[in-house]
């Protein structure tokens, strides 16, 4: 009998496959790019960016997912044991934005607090990012850090990135409350992607 999904001989991680170009009716949801929503959280920020390919052409059919702590640095997750930190009932910290014809995406969120890192280290405020799309067989993972943040210099993950490429992980202030984070899938300004 041919091997298949139910065969013990091949049991293991299900392989990644691309989302393809036709995910828009399924994965984006109303409110996906707006993590703040109608709640009265102070200090909402916007993260804007564009996705580019190796030739510098915009990627119009990518899907960006973000995951982050709240402003107090707590994740809205059963796996975050730090119950002493405040949790916002309305702020889940997960968002999705598909890209437009010009490769643009946009999120409305809050600047996350610092969170613990390996050992006794402290991670600078950051947002985890997944990039999916046609031509992406598996998710690419990166992080948004905030330019000018004093904690960046001691961040244990940024420290693993060659100094010359760290700039690809820094969102830059564009206008008050708006941060720009472009993603270059390849090319001279290729974004740093992580193996997690």
């Amino acid at each position, binding site marked *: 009998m041919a091997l298949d999904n139910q065969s013990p001989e091949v049991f293991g991680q*299900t392989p*990644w496959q691309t989302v*393809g170009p036709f995910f828009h*009716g399924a994965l984006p949801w109303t409110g996906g790019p707006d993590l703040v929503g109608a709640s009265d959280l102070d200090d909402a920020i916007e993260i804007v960016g564009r996705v580019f390919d190796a*030739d510098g052409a915009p990627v119009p059919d990518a899907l960006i997912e973000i*995951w982050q702590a709240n402003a107090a640095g707590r994740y809205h997750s059963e796996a975050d044991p730090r119950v002493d930190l405040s949790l916002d009932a309305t702020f889940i910290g997960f968002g999705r934005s598909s890209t437009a014809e010009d490769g643009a995406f946009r999120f409305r969120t809050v600047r996350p607090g610092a969170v613990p890192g390996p050992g006794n280290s402290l991670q600078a405020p950051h947002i985890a990012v997944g990039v999916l799309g046609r031509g992406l*067989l*598996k998710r690419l993972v990166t992080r948004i850090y905030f330019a000018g943040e004093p904690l960046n210099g001691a961040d244990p993950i940024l420290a693993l990135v060659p100094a010359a490429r760290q700039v690809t992980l820094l969102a830059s202030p564009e206008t008050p409350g708006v941060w720009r984070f472009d993603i270059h899938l*390849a090319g001279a300004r290729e974004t740093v*992607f992580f193996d997690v």
Partner: protein
Amino acid sequence: MPDSPGYRREDAAQPPSLHPSYASTVARSPRQPPVRIPQTLTETTGPADWGRLMGAAMADLTAWHAGAPLGQRIIVAGRVLDEDRRPVPNTVVEIWQANAAGRYNHARDQWDAPLDPNFTGAGRAVTDAEGRYRYVTVRPGAYPWKNHHNAWRPSHIHLSVLGPAFATRLVTQMYFPDDPLVAIDPIAGAVPEPHRQRMVARFDLATTEPDWALGYLFDIVLRGRGATPMGG
């Protein structure tokens, strides 16, 4: 705070980012190797009750419209598990697919096959305490694409699972047994054998419902928990 044990890394089934026979990977794949980082709280956490943001589950794709969609009615059922075969309960499984003629209900799908006014082709379910999910849909058709001369995608259903953590995110495609297109498909072919067969569903008579629908089994296996520092 003690370090979390985290999740296991990719196994040999995971495709490379660059797979030139799937042409769109060439301009969209990083050329630098990914920077390996330890899993921190960021990677070992995931949204706890994200599913409630999405509203009610919609696991019957044949029931969206006034009439029944055309095509072979099927049931796709299975479990979301981790690598230690532990169930992953209460996680959202999203699916989308072409209709029975191989056409997506999508503005960018220009293939000359008919849309079905009774089929949208998207759904969402939440796994139960045993990690089980179940969809009712129609078998999607194959369709041509422009990857190379005479290229056809095999019949497939896209499945997206969040799992318990940022690290466990998975999007895959389910294929059908005895489909000759799977073996010559560059996207399925990015996964080395024999692991590719993990994506081929099994026809199952016990899942099949008499006088109603054929049944297929498709389990989804997410990365398992890593060994703890105390573990042997």
